[in-house]
């Protein structure tokens, strides 16, 4: 079963990468002309995909700190898996937002000519720090395994491991303890950093007074909880296929533990959404209520009701309630259904991100503006074009392939902990 899923994921990623390449070809030959966003709805799928991936990354990373900082015993074997998942998502997020820029090759201006009044400049600083932190932390986490693979392994993988070990040879207990200490320090730095950069993305939207749909103190908090929910769900789904499943009972317990965390986070995230929706709708102030009405009852109502609420909250909640929550018979394997529920949460969370970005932009700033002048991009409706979907598909596939290759080549999960090595 798991072998089949692995093959299926490879297949999807390779096909997605191939199909997506055509989108990338169009992106670099036609720029932004084949996209549906424009002057009045300036942001579209790629921005939504960016906050989606960066949320997955932040959530997965924050769960890794449960291992390295809080030392949660149940999760100790998946610390590296969480870190590596976070890394793959970070790469997808950065590429997604980079492709969205009108002048993508000027991106370094954000780092070298920042404006610290702009949340987006802070993103540049924080993502760079996060990128460095995650690389260093990941390297320390797999250092000993790399050295051991280099010693005992054969052929290419040993050579690759030796290369990545960067000349480090010390696998003594003292060195291992030093690694654990370093990981604790890095993880401890990582917690506020992840909260800052993802709360920061929420603030990037939240501070825009011109967009009442975003302009709320709850926005950064909802971003964080959403990141934990979706990132936690992704990690749980990934763990089912690539995680340490040799000890069946232990693995089952771990999946249930993760399932419970995800369930709580999904419900809490939904609670925040309900609060935003009800408080926004009640007074009926048009600028605040119209985006919500469009989200709930507009032409794309199914994105909220079917994809997000039905498949992303209700169904996973029912599955998780009936599998992860009941105690007792831990011999019964519930890992599969839990992973499936978490996969649903992960995939459908893109709907949440789209429902943040797009409804916030669909209200004409001045009533009647939509009829004042016509031209491409001078409209208040948005549906991603095939080219936009293909580019996002490519980005997602790239992230998945990065993960799959890394999982194959790096000691992310020890082979001896896996049922099928």
């Amino acid at each position: 079963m798991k072998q089949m899923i692995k093959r299926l994921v490879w297949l999807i990623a390779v096909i997605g990468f191939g199909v997506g390449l055509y989108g990338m070809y169009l992106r670099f030959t036609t720029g932004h002309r084949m996209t549906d966003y424009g002057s009045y709805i300036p942001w579209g799928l790629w921005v939504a995909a960016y906050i989606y991936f960066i949320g997955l990354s932040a959530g997965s990373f924050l769960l890794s700190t449960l291992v390295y900082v809080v030392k949660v015993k149940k999760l100790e074997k998946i610390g590296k898996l969480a870190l590596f998942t976070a890394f793959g998502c970070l790469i997808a997020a950065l590429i997604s937002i980079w492709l969205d820029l009108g002048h993508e090759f000027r991106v370094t201006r954000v780092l070298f000519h920042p404006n610290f009044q702009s949340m987006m400049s802070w993103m540049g600083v924080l993502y760079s720090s996060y990128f460095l932190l995650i690389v260093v932390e990941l390297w320390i986490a797999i250092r000993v395994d790399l050295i051991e693979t280099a010693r005992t392994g054969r052929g290419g993988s040993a050579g690759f491991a030796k290369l990545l070990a960067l000349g480090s040879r010390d696998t003594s207990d003292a060195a291992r303890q030093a690694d654990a200490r370093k990981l604790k320090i890095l993880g401890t730095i990582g917690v506020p950093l992840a909260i800052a950069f993802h709360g920061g993305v929420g603030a990037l939207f939240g501070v825009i007074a011109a967009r009442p749909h975003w302009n709320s103190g709850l926005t950064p908090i909802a971003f964080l909880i959403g990141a934990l929910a979706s990132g936690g769900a992704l990690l749980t789904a990934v763990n089912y296929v690539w995680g340490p499943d040799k000890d069946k009972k232990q693995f089952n317990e771990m999946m249930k533990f993760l399932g419970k965390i995800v369930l709580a986070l999904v419900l809490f995230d939904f609670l925040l959404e309900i609060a935003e929706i009800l408080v926004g709708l009640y007074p009926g102030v048009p600028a605040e209520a119209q985006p919500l009405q469009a989200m709930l009852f507009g032409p794309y109502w199914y994105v909220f009701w079917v994809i997000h609420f039905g498949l992303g909250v209700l169904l996973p909640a029912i599955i998780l309630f009936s599998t992860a929550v009941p105690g007792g018979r831990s011999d019964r394997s519930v890992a599969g259904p839990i992973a499936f529920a978490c996969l649903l949460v992960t995939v459908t969370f893109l709907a949440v991100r789209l429902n943040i970005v797009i409804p916030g932009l669909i209200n004409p700033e001045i009533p009647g503006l939509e009829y004042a002048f016509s031209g491409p991009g001078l409209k208040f409706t948005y549906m991603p074009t095939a080219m936009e979907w293909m580019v996002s598909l490519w980005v997602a596939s790239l992230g998945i392939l990065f993960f799959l290759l890394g999982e194959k080549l790096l000691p992310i999960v020890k082979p001896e902990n896996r049922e099928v090595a």
Partner: protein
Amino acid sequence: MALIDIEPHEIRQRMMDDLQRALKKPMQERHWAMVIDQDKCVGCTACTTSCVAENHLPPGVVYRPVIEEEIGTYPNVRKTFLPRPCMQCEDPPCVKVCPASATWKRADGIIEIDYDKCIGCRYCIAACPYAARTFDKGYFYSDGTPFIPQYERSPNFEYGEEWPRKNRDSSPVGNARKCTYCIHRVEKGILPACVTTCIGDATYFGDAKDPESLIAELLGSPRLRRLKEEEGTSPTTAYLV
């Protein structure tokens, strides 16, 4: 009722004289402002069109649309027209959010964009409560025809520089763009294109810091309104309603 003691044919002469006087002062001692009299606007959109022509605006980019509003029900129906240039805010949200330090407020009040610095993230477009900024995606009017005629490639002169539309990758393609109050014309002593083409003499322009100027007089009118002041943007562009 006449607001100020001036004959219609004297308005333009006075604005031009005001302009010459303002240009003799150092930049930081003048503050360009625009007042639009909605009572006099007939909704002809000559300003919109002249702005497109003056700044060589491509498809999808517009600096001064005229928004129509219908008031009342038949037979008591009226229309009002709201030309919407850049508000050149005192506290511009677009400047605050720019991650690349590519846009700023000049000493004379104009919000400038450096097209060579703008990375095209469009955060400023999202932040502007007036939709005054638009995104140049790189279209040409001749798209779909065998070739792009030279006149579509000829430069505009925004902010006093030459910006030819060389190809679809070079600035101002890929940038956020907006009304400049035609500062390239103004600094040569010519009124903005929207002002000179307004058939109803409904758009006024001048130096708000010069108490003798027509614009300064109008800025003291009790009919004066500014758009969305509750946003805390303190717009410079004002309306007479």
